[in-house]
């Protein structure tokens, strides 16, 4: 048999004996073994890596909060993963048309507009890169598939660059340092933690809940739980770096259970000074540059800030109640309950109305829109009540506020 005259001939020659079938089958054990080893690796490596919480000296909650307050990290770079699951209905195309409409209304229609990009963070999982070098140089980049949106603050200049559409927004700012920083969207776990710690008062229990490894660093876990009933917030967990006091991970779980509403954490962090070129930006040739008027950026950030609603009220309205059950209220001035103003409003109010629950009370009639965290009541006479509280608490607040 000429074709079998090869260096495998020895094996093949045994094909005549009765064990040949088994020998053939045995060869398939190799790919099966490869799959098995791969599956074991995928399953075991994260488990091994996660095991063994770091051994750190005991610390009280007070000391840990002081540590966060004293933390003054000026230089850092890292990767942050943010998952938000507000339980909003999937609006699909409508959501994006609303988003683009809002963006056009306030910022001149550039896709590099920070406000338009910010709304993307409200749902889903996003990867961000943050870098900072002192109060004058910061950069936040939103990593997208094949493109990136960067917000670069370098001295007096604030650039927004959207590589997908090759468009740039530019604004200058005389303010520097903390003021400027405060205007930026809350994206790092520290931003979220600052907001959460503002709410710490008599209505809250704060405990240290062991330790964990975050982004390869030993961290304490601070657990914040509301004592009040009526709020939708279940618990907030903040992982604080044991060395620098920098919050590394922020998790907000709703009272109703299930996945975290907001989960923002570093997957990679370094406290070394980032390269100076990180913050240098010149608009690329051919890019569409939109100049923004001074202060425009600040105004835009009055909009939705994820993770803020539970801690403080809307800055334009008044706040009813205190602590976790505080409800923000403001008057839209619009009669009919739902926002109007565009030609779309007719369809829109009908559509939104179908998403909410009709309620009535001393305040009159209204519609409650529910998410897993925030409930919003829009009354038919144009008042809006919003808070991280249950529907009943919201109606009660509206009744009292009347």
């Amino acid at each position: 048999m000429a074709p079998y005259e090869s260096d495998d001939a020895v094996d093949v020659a045994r094909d005549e004996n009765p064990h040949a079938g088994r020998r053939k089958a045995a060869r398939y054990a190799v790919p099966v073994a490869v799959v098995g080893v791969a599956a074991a690796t995928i399953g075991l490596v994260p488990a091994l890596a996660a095991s063994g919480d770091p051994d750190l000296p005991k610390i009280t909650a007070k000391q840990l909060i002081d540590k966060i307050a004293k933390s003054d990290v000026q230089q850092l770079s890292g990767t942050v993963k943010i998952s938000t699951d507000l339980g909003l209905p999937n609006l699909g195309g409508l959501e994006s048309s609303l988003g683009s409409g809002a963006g056009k209304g306030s910022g001149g229609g550039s896709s590099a507009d920070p406000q338009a990009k910010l709304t993307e963070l409200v749902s889903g999982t996003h990867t961000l890169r943050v870098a900072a070098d002192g109060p004058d140089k910061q950069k936040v980049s939103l990593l997208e598939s094949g493109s990136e949106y960067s917000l670069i603050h370098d001295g007096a200049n604030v650039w927004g660059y959207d590589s997908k559409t090759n468009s740039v927004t530019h604004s200058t700012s005389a303010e520097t340092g903390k003021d400027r920083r405060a205007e930026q969207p809350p994206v790092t776990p520290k931003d979220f933690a600052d907001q959460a710690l503002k709410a710490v008062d008599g209505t809250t229990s704060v405990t240290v809940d062991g330790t964990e490894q975050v982004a390869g660093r030993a961290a304490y876990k601070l657990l914040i739980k509301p004592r009040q009933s009526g709020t939708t917030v279940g618990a907030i967990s903040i992982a604080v770096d044991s060395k620098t006091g920098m919050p590394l991970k922020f998790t907000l779980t709703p009272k109703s259970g299930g996945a975290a509403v907001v989960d923002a954490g570093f997957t990679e962090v370094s406290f070394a000074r980032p390269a100076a070129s990180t913050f240098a930006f010149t608009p690329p040739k051919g890019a569409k540059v939109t100049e923004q008027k001074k202060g425009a950026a600040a105004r835009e950030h009055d909009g939705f800030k994820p993770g803020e609603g539970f801690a403080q009220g809307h800055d334009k309205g008044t706040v009813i109640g205190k602590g976790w059950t505080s409800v923000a209220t403001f008057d839209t001035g619009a009669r009919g309950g739902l926002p109007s103003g565009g030609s779309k409003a007719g369809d829109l109010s009908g559509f939104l109305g179908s998403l909410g629950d009709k309620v009535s009370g001393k305040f009159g009639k209204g519609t409650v829109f529910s998410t897993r965290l925030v409930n919003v009541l829009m009354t038919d006479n144009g008042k809006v009540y919003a808070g991280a509280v249950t529907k009943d608490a919201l109606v009660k607040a509206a009744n009292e506020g009347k």
Partner: protein
Amino acid sequence: MSRAETDPLSEKGPGSEAAPAPRAAPGAEAAVASAVRRPSPLWTFGLLRSELVTTVRRWRTLALLGVLAVVPVLVGIAVKIETRGGGSADHGGQGPAFISQITNNGLFLVFTALAATLPFFLPMAVGVVAGDAIAGEAGAGTLRYLLVAPAGRTRLLLTKYATVTAFCLLATLVVAVSALIVGALLFPLGDLTTISGTRISFAEGLGRALLIALVVALSLVGVAALGLFVSTLTNSGIAAMATTVGLLTTVQILDQIPQLHALQPYFFSHYWLSFADLMRDPVYWDDLQKNLGLQALYAAVFGTAAWARFTAKDISA
């Protein structure tokens, strides 16, 4: 087109069935003369060279490479025509990655062309070559002659896989070089802005383009192994090619279905477009590592499966 007709090294014509030594490579005559003797290691390279030459000289291969070379030309001309008035290509973020940056810098045409061809054209070409590797030989009746030469089945399979992998690199380079030439002719070159907004020099950009081409080529080795495994299952080259390309399309469709998100990280095509992460500054390695790891896994699983099948197979043609 049978192996014997195209093989420049064949000593006898297709009709001479009695002389079963059509693929003797230079320096290997001694080994052919005594088939029982173990062949010298150099023989492997002779076999590989013979395989490469046979593959590249096929009209089918040349046509595939020609199609791949035309894609960047079409993209480049389309962008040029659209931006003729000096306006920028504003697609509102639609289209393949990097397309809006082409007008600033011709080098971006390389990335756009690879992003446009990677989902379908490139793996299809690889699927055709890989699917044909064993099944085509079997279908043309030349496989038994290949095994007459003292190559051994394992070695023949490895050589076939090496050839397909070399074709992955060749096909990617054809796209990249064609895109670079078109980009240089139609658009300005110079310092470029990474998608993170930082600037890098043209030389570094060129280096990254080369790295991207390499990563794209490596992204295809999983498909290559899958195609080779399918190729050992059948004696019909067409069936193997169609199955491979069909699997490819199916996986790409499944990768778009949100309900399957738990499975998607294990689809060979899932991290393909992660090559764009090389254009970030600093480079974001997470998905690139996942992609290369996944390709290595596919190569290992389907490579060993192809070996298990091929070494135990009855060669009837």
